[in-house]
């Protein structure tokens, strides 16, 4: 046996002096504190002002209040279900199973933007449609779409700063115009996007609304080629412009009531249109529309034939996380996407553990 490496296994080395013992104990303490420090640093404990999913959701809660069991944004909604019938045209763009010719079940949720689940319906509020496509073999595709043509903010920080700037002043009950003006002055992309949003008049109801992916994504085909895409749901129902004449409806949920009545009469349908971007089209800026004339492919039809209150719909308990994507789809470099995923998850985790309070669109409302 070699004897030079056995010193470390000698059971009884010469005792350490008291001083050297203390120095070594101190050294161990420093090493352990450093390890704890690195862990806390990674967890953001030393950057109390950095934007985190938790702080973002806190801003939603400050803006609209906390309603037990409800989403912190897009709180008012109703569950739907149906199916997506792919025509096979999307298969050359993406290898995702959803684009092979055939039918997959879908559940979804119509909603209004904002954190108040009892807000009165208004046509100018943001309309949302979250969808979950159940693909064969357990894959899923989730998408959370809105009726805006572009998104007003380039980055999560812009969105957050706007939430803070538009916070109602406790004295006046209205946002501070100076803060709003300061935000607008420093965010020209938002001003540009809002003017584009305002140039698109909303349609009369959910049933004839077009919904957009807003963010760019990437499709990957069977050969591994990746292309930038955006998608839209274009209603089969004729688009009827909003009428602003006549007496305004008194029912707080008249737009939800209308889509309920509509689906109870006949299924509603949308074409899923994939817009294929060119390499020069920006994929990291949701405030910018892509130029006209990009290739558009109608890849199939979404049919929603069932509508029910959140009290019974499985959609209530689904987080329509836009980054739950099947193989063949991937996020783009848009910084909003990862942030949306993180913030939706935070909102979902908070509401999941809360007592569920009745939705404004009750089961009776859907049945009537």
């Amino acid at each position, binding site marked *: *046996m*070699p*004897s030079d*490496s*056995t010193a*470390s*296994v*000698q*059971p*009884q*080395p010469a005792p*350490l002096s008291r001083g050297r*013992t203390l120095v*070594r*104990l101190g*050294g*161990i303490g420093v*090493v*352990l504190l450093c*390890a*704890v420090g*690195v*862990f806390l640093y*990674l*967890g*953001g404990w030393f950057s109390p002002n*950095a*934007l*985190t*999913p*938790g702080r*973002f959701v806190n801003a939603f809660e400050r803006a609209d209040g906390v309603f037990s069991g409800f989403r912190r944004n897009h709180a008012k909604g109703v569950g739907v279900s149906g199916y997506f019938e792919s025509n096979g045209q999307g298969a050359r763009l993406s290898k995702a*199973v959803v684009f092979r010719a055939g039918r997959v079940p879908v559940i979804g949720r119509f909603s209004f933007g904002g954190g108040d689940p009892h807000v009165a319906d208004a046509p100018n509020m943001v309309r949302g449609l979250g969808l979950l496509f159940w693909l064969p*073999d*357990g*894959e*899923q595709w989730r998408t959370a779409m809105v009726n805006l043509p572009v998104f007003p903010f380039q980055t*999560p920080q812009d969105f957050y700063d706007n939430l803070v700037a538009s916070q109602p002043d406790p004295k006046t009950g209205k946002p501070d115009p100076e803060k709003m003006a300061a935000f607008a002055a420093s965010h020209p992309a938002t001003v540009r996007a809002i003017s584009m949003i305002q140039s698109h008049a909303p349609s009369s109801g959910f049933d004839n609304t077009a919904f957009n992916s807003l963010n760019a994504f990437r499709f990957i085909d069977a050969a591994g080629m990746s292309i930038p895409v955006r998608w839209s749901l274009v209603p089969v129902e004729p688009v009827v412009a909003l009428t602003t004449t006549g007496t305004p409806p008194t029912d707080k949920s008249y737009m939800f009531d209308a889509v309920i009545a509509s689906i109870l009469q006949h299924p509603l349908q949308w074409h899923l249109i994939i817009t294929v971007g060119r390499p020069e089209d920006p994929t990291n800026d949701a405030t910018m529309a892509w130029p006209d004339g990009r290739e558009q492919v109608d890849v199939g039809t979404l049919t929603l034939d069932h509508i029910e209150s959140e009290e019974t719909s*499985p959609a209530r*308990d*689904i*987080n329509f*996380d836009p*980054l*739950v994507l099947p*193989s063949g789809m991937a*996020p783009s470099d848009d*910084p909003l*996407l*990862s*942030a949306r*995923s*993180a*913030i939706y*998850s935070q909102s*979902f*985790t908070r*509401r*999941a*553990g809360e007592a569920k309070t009745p939705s404004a669109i009750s089961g009776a409302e859907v049945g009537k």
Partner: protein
Amino acid sequence: MDKAGEQRQFTVLMRILHWLMAAMVLTMLAIGVAMVASLGDYHRLVSIHRPLGIAILIVVVIRFVIRQLSTLPPFPASMSSRERFIAHASEVLLYTLLFVLPLIGWGMLSAARFPIVLYGPLHLPPILPHSVMLYAFLRRTHTVLAYLLFLAFIAHFGAILFHTLVVRDGLFSRMAPWRVDAR
């Protein structure tokens, strides 16, 4: 070869598994604590966290089985029976956490009906029914146990530093990545 009675180190295979898991688990703890505070890197980190967690679950099961089949080196004579009991209990705690944490992660994603994506189309089936209340409970438990795992790691690391630098009883040589010959 040493005779069984003189074995001072864990077997080569057990030492490889120990250091492999040390790297995986420290990476996992760092990713876990960073991703919940992150916006821009959240998706990238979650996409590593999920398959790495399942990999840890697989390795800990393999390691446990191999441990049952292996002869373990004795504790140094300097350790009192109380110290041995504490060392043994901390090993039980570490094994339990390394087994339970990935299972809870899998379970909580199941209860939220998230797909448990490993890579590309490769994913695991759900192991629990769709229940957001169950998800919320498991999600909280996942965090609490992850912090407990980090504290257990700190205690484990501190204990080995203490034995190596102060007691100097050669405890570390049992798991040293290199070969340490017996007397």
